[in-house]
């Protein structure tokens, strides 16, 4: 039994950008996980979601 991906969704504490990280990236990104892709500020955790096709609310960050 399995099911991925699962995302943590954030709003940037600085520029208010909305973005999400797949939780399986925690191991790879370490301290960078959860940071805003635009300004680098830590995001404020908002919600946790499974993948929803075509959901444009949060930009995925994976690098």
């Amino acid at each position: 039994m399995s099911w991925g991906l699962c995302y943590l969704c954030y709003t940037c504490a600085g520029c208010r950008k909305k973005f999400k990280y797949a939780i399986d990236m925690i191991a790879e990104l370490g301290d960078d996980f959860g940071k805003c892709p635009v300004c680098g500020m830590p995001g404020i955790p908002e919600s946790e979601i499974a993948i929803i096709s075509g959901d444009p609310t949060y930009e995925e960050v994976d690098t």
Partner: protein
Amino acid sequence: MARKTIITVATTGAWPKKENNPNVPMTPAEICEDVYECWKAGAAIAHLHMRDDDGNGTMDKEKFAQTVGLLRSRHPDCDIILNMTTSGDLYATDETRQAHLRELRPEMGSYDCGSMNWMHSALFLNPPQFLEELGRNMQEWGVKPEIEAFDPGMIANAAYYLKKGVLKAPLHFQFCMGCANGIPGSMKNLIFMKETMESMCPSSTWSCFGVGHSAMEILYGAVALGGHVRVGMEDNVLYSKGILAGSNRQFVERAARVIREYGSEAATPAEAREILSLNR
């Protein structure tokens, strides 16, 4: 002779729905046709989950029976190995998690070798009493356990049950990697899982899959390290970054391609039976 690699397809799982990917097969008829297509593309094992009429995971044995019945009647040429889940609904009872095995006697069934927090939101319970009962029943019913290990501790647990007689050698493992709360999917961790298995349960066979970003790394890693592979929409609804999978067959075709290009061959069901000692 080229090495044979077994492709397992996990078509449906308990969680992804049409809203996640409209191509996930949900009904017995959809699953039947999907399994047949995957068999033609090179899958030797089909790992089956069922859904109720609302699309939620269910252990309803009638759904399993319908699916098997359709597969046998529509596609009598299909000799794919059926591997039925015992963990298709977090709220199923010990009885409903096993009833389909007792009634349908598939060649394989999943055996989740430990409990864990599921997706950070629920409990995935596999207590000792259940695992002992399930292991002994599977031996009695001639159903080979596919031991799903979400972390190395579950391999150690399988070794304990092997020594206790609850499980019988040779064991077959499925390393489930990259799942929320399980071991992250990486080559380093795959090697660690393999070495843990080899030290605690020698002579076992193993397969693996990676959820999400690790899917391809684990696929290539398994082939390179001499393991077997599992693919399908139970584990990944995306074929590649941002691209929804068009079908489970697409995943099987890619796995078969990787195996061939490495210099191995996808095992037929008959060859998989030999590799896994499915000799009942």
